Structure formats: structure tokens, C-alpha cells
């Protein structure tokens, strides 16, 4: 039991990821306000992006631009750029999703005059 906890605290980034992910998921499930649901959704997306960034961190390395044009390239000196590019794309996807979601929210508000899920469901019947 103790080893399990020790192993978890050795990797605080994973722990942080799990906490943010579950926190977002909890908000998504328990809140009735649609915008609050979106906040939870965005936390879930952000936690995955955080996970991607944290597994690609590298101590003592620099941006992937050649330090000198003549010296031979040492991979250990540079950060792998691919996870960061993926992260950027994932952020763009997240922003687009949020945009569509907020547009839907505003349309729902204009139609039903409320953002509370229970009230809207009452009006739907």
C-alpha cells in the first residue's frame, strides 16, 4: 500500500492530471447549468493537454533549433517538438469545440430563456 502511494507521489504530474480530469468530469456530471457543464468539459480537455505536455518535458534541453550549424546534432540537447505541436492542435480543437458549444448555449438561451437544464427539460415537455 505504502509503495503504491510512494509511486504515485514520485510522479506528481500524473497525479495532477488525474485530479484535474476527475474534477472536470465531476463538474460535467453534477451541475445543471449548461455553461458550468462546459467549464467541466474544458477542464477535461485541458487535463489531457497537460498530460501530453508533462510527459514530453525534458530537463536541461532547449528549443529544437540547432545550437550551431556545424556541430553534430545531439538529441539530448533538444526537446522533442512533436508533443508540443500535438498540444497546439489539441488546443485549437478544444477552442473550436468550445466555440460551437457556446453558440449552442446562446441559441438555447434565446429559445428557452434559461440555461438551467431542469427548467429547459420542463419547457420541452
Amino acid at each position, binding site marked *: 500500500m505504502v509503495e503504491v502511494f510512494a509511486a504515485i507521489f514520485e510522479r506528481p504530474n500524473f497525479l495532477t492530471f488525474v485530479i484535474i480530469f476527475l474534477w472536470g468530469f465531476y463538474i460535467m456530471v453534477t451541475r445543471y447549468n449548461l455553461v458550468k457543464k462546459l467549464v467541466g468539459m474544458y477542464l477535461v480537455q485541458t487535463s*489531457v493537454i497537460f498530460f501530453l505536455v508533462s510527459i514530453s518535458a525534458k530537463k536541461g534541453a532547449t528549443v529544437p533549433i540547432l545550437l550551431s550549424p556545424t556541430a553534430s546534432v545531439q538529441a539530448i540537447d533538444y526537446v522533442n517538438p512533436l*508533443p508540443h505541436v500535438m498540444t497546439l492542435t489539441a488546443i485549437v480543437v478544444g477552442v473550436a469545440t468550445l466555440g*460551437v458549444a457556446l453558440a*449552442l448555449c446562446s*441559441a*438555447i438561451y434565446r429559445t428557452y430563456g434559461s440555461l438551467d437544464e431542469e427548467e429547459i427539460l420542463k419547457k*420541452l415537455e
Partner: protein
Amino acid sequence: MSRHLPALLFLVPLFAAISMPIVCLRHRAWSRSIALSVLCSMVVFSIMNLVNIFQYGEIRYAFSGWPPPLGIEWVADGLASVVLVALSLLGLVTLIFAGSTSPKDLGGRIVHYYTLILLLISALTGIVFAGDLFNLFVFLEVAALASYALVGVAGGKALMAAFRYLILGTLGASLYLLGVSYFYAATGTLNMADMAEQLPHLLTSKAVLGGLLFMFLGLGIKMALVPFHAWLPDAYTHAPDSVSPILAALVTKVALLGWVRVMFWVLGIKVAVDDTPVLLLVGLLGSLAAVIGAVLALTQQDLKRMFAYGGISHIGIILIGVSQGNQTGFVGGVFYLLNDAVMQASLFFIAGVAISLYGVYTIEDVGRIAKQSPLLTSALVIAAMGMIGLPPTGGFFGKWYIILGALEANNYVAVGAVLLSTMLTLAYFVRIFERVFRHAPTLPDARPIEIPIQMKLSVGFTSMAIIVLGLLSDPIVGLLIDHTLPPGL
């Protein structure tokens, strides 16, 4: 030229979708002709591509000339090309259908509709062709965003359904991305072919098992596999009549295709990841989905909702087919996927006609159609025969090969599930036919309504396709066995 067809098939609808809001700013009526001509050219291109690939083998297209492990790769193999032909044909037929219903049931938002449809089709093309896991994620999300917007495009009741679809779909996409990042952490690559070479040494890794689980959860939500299907019935029921056929026919099936890619092209087959028999578990979940979906369909009153649950149960049957781990089952699954796409399109076309012309929403009222339109009734009979799986239709042969594959794998649970879901499908179509043939129509004096030519064309085409797929099942299955099997099966 033919080498660039896979890229062209994706870029043509994408650029048309991007430029449409600008071009059609002044001339809204142009949007329909632009969309139709794009889809027509896609049909031609996709058939050329299919012939080319059946003749000369698969094409691996590296974008901007960057070689695969680093660059972005398009894999145009037999499976992708076959699905693409179905995709572009069904897209075209949906657009033809939309000509008769669209301005009314979309609330006048024609340009929005055609832009989103083209965006959806280009993203689905991307999912079919994607050669690496991250691009699969991006296209899944583009397709999903287009579908959320399409469901909600007309406003009203559909808005809430679209919002729920969005929340669940985004959760699915996040889980899929999490799975991809586990795989990336384990292998250091995203390219499917490259990953497939590295994974056999890593199969005991917990990261691979976890990543696979998250990917399956994510794609399971996208393909509406049974425990995660909650978003689908509402979204398909409330979506405008010119939207639900294309969603029902294509979106969930293409997500399933993404899972097939991960399962067979990345992981390889006959695989037990950390002693977990993946194929067997997927097959079991498929059996569950096939039965539960059909049971839920049996309890519905709303016509569109019943067809939506029917689609959920058929996703399960396709999964049973592809997860038997032998050639017969896999080909049966792929063949059934094509059939199911056509049948779902046909059912939702029929529901669309019934709703927009006759005001028939529930099974109670279906009797009215029989009196007024023999054409629609015969189309419904053909689609029902396909869904149940009676001999001259493609549905029968798909189920036949799936059952043969399950027997070959000694998987009697799967055989039982397919048979049981067939019985249940029969039961819920009997409920419809009871209304159609036995009950007197409720409005006897209603004058016959002329069905617009576009509706006749689209319903007729899909009904023909259900029969033709059945009659030509032998040569088609032969071609599928020759060209679509994953490596090593």
C-alpha cells in the same frame, strides 16, 4: 494523376466547404449546385480511386513529400477505398433528398447546411484515409463538430439534443486523445505502420493496455456502442429530416472503421495485450449492443427513434463480425457495414418523407402511409427485409458471413446474439407492418400527395442498392476478401 486521387478526394470538399460561405454570401441559391457538383466529382474520383487501387494495390500518400514516420501519411488501401465509394454515393443521395425538404426543415439556413455537410464529408474522408493516430483524432473532432452543428442547425428541440451530443462527444474525443498519448509515450511515434512495428515488443506494458482501453472508450462513445449510446437517439430524432440520414448512415460507421484500424492495423490480430484477449472482449460488447439495441428499439413509439435504436443494434452486429479473428467474419462485418449504411439512409429517408409529407411521427400513424403511397410502403418493406436479413437483400448475406465466421471461431455467444437480434428486429418491424397493413387509415378522405421527384430518386436509389448489394453479394464479397483484409489475417 491517379496517384494524387486520395489527397484530391479530401481537399475538394474541404476547400468547397471553406469557400462556400464567401461565394454564397450574395447568391444563396448557388450553395446547392456547388455542393451537388462537389459530391458528383467525389463519386467519380472515388470510383476511379477504387478501380486504381484494386488494380495496382494500395497507395501511401505522403503530404508535401515528407516521408511517413515524420510526415503526415494517407493510407488509401482497399478498405478505405470501398468505404469511400459508399460515403460519397450516400452523401450525394442525401443532398438530392435535401433538395425537397431543406428550406423548410432547416429554418432557411441553406448555406449553413451545405457548408457543414461538405465539411462533414471531407472530415469523414480524412478519418477513412488517416495513416496516423493523431490525425484520426483531428478528423474525428472536425466530423463531430460538423455533426453537432448539423443537428442543431434548425434550432428548436434539436438544440438540447445537440448540446448533449456535444458534451458526450467531446468526452469521447478527450478519452481517445488520452489513449493516443499513452501510445505515444510507449512507442514515440504516431504513424500507424511505424507503431505496428514497435508494439509487438511492448504488449506486456500497462501503458499500452491503458491506452487501448481509453481509445476504445473514446471511439465507443463516437460509434454509440451500447453503454455509451445515450446521445444518439435524441440527436437523430430531433435532427432535421435532411440531416439525420447522413448522420445515421455514415458518422457512427466511420468511427467504427477507426476502431478497426486501431485494432487490426496498429495492434495486429490474435493479440492478447497483457493477457487481455482484446478481440474476444470487443466481440462480447458487440453481442451485448446487438441485443440491447434491438430490445430498446422494440419499446419505441417514435418512428425515427426506433430506427435510431435499430442502428445502434446493427453497430453491435458489425463489431461481432470484425472481431471474430478470421477472414469470413471480417469480410462479413465490412460487407454488413456497407449494407447497414445504405439501410439506415433508406430508413431515415422514408421517415423524412413520412414526416414532411404525411405528418406521420409515430408508429400509431404509419397506417396512413399505406393508403396514400404504395411506393413508400414498398420501400419500407424492402428496407425492413434488409434490416431483418431476408434472403434477396444484402443484409441477409452480411449476417450469413458473420454467423459463418462466428461458427468458424467456435464463438456461439456471438451466433446467439446475431440470431436473437434478428428475431427482435423482426418483432419491431412486425409492429410497424401490423399498423401498415391491418389498421384502417385514420384520415380516409385525405387526398393523395404527390411525392417530389428528389424524394422518389433518393428512396428508390437506396432501395435498389439494398437489393443489388444482395444480388451481387458473391462478387462483392470476393473482391472484399481479395482487397480489404488487414495484414496477417
